[in-house]
């Protein structure tokens, strides 16, 4: 199945976008969690502080569906 991952900032370097400057198309096996998918493309889950799909925050245990677009957020803690 196909998944689209988006990221900005530091995460973009890890994501290595290929669709546009923020988006990577990932072909993966159905039933894998987002955490498993991130590991399979070389992104350490600890570098992802939040992920969202549509207007919902999703945990890394989320199992994406075919064609889903998920945006990844790096840790944001400055003030």
């Amino acid at each position: 199945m196909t998944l689209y991952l988006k990221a900005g900032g530091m995460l973009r370097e890890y994501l290595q976008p290929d669709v546009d400057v923020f988006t990577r198309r990932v072909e993966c096996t159905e039933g894998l969690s987002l955490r498993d998918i991130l590991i399979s493309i070389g992104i350490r889950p600890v570098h992802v502080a939040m992920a969202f799909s549509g207007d919902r925050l999703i945990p890394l245990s989320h199992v994406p569906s075919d064609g889903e677009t998920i945006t990844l957020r790096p840790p944001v803690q400055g003030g």
Partner: protein
Amino acid sequence: MPDRYARQSSMPGIGPAGQRTLERSHIFVAGTGGLGSPVLMYLSCAGIGRITFVDRDAVEITNLNRQILFDSTDIGSRKTEVACRRLSAINPNIHLDPIDTPLNEQMITESDLPIDLAIDCLDNDPSRRMLARACHEKGIPMVHGALAGYEATLAVFQSRTGPCYACVHPDPPLTAITPPVLGGIAGTVGSMMAVEAIRMILNVGPDRSGSLLLMDFERGTFDRVYASRITECPICGIGSASSKI
């Protein structure tokens, strides 16, 4: 003499009664840095009657790209002292309670005066958890802001009815000790936090607690997303030390 607040008290949802509500309110602000500076300045401008604010640092030259409460002549001075002077000059009609020590939960849980709302302008996760725990214990809403590079978060947490900060971050996130920050982003987000606080005090607009505005100033995107309360939350979840409140 024209009224200092004439231009805002004529706004829908404020009016003379709303202005009096602002003047009777008490807001706790944790941190006087990049976010805290605009938050404190706009709360003072708006006439929030009492502002307690805490910061344990002195002004450093590297603060000056974003911490607009301070200027070059303040380097080495205590932040709370300078902030108090500036804010009093902005609005001498409000009461300021500066605290020049590290944040602790008792500042909120044992406050002699009721606190209507707390604002998280902190720069690290452990302090944010501490503030969230104190807010949960007292049932106080918390406006949260955070920055790193081009990305920023603005959220409102009311843990008695929805998710808290730790529901969104159940595990401490991996963070850089000194994340890069552009002053204009800190100013934008801090100003938005002040507006959110004023809006909540006045009960203007919809309840946005549990939602996060995720901003990416590089991509040019503002996404509003919704979080859920999690049962295993270390602060407000079932079995947490403070869940039996």
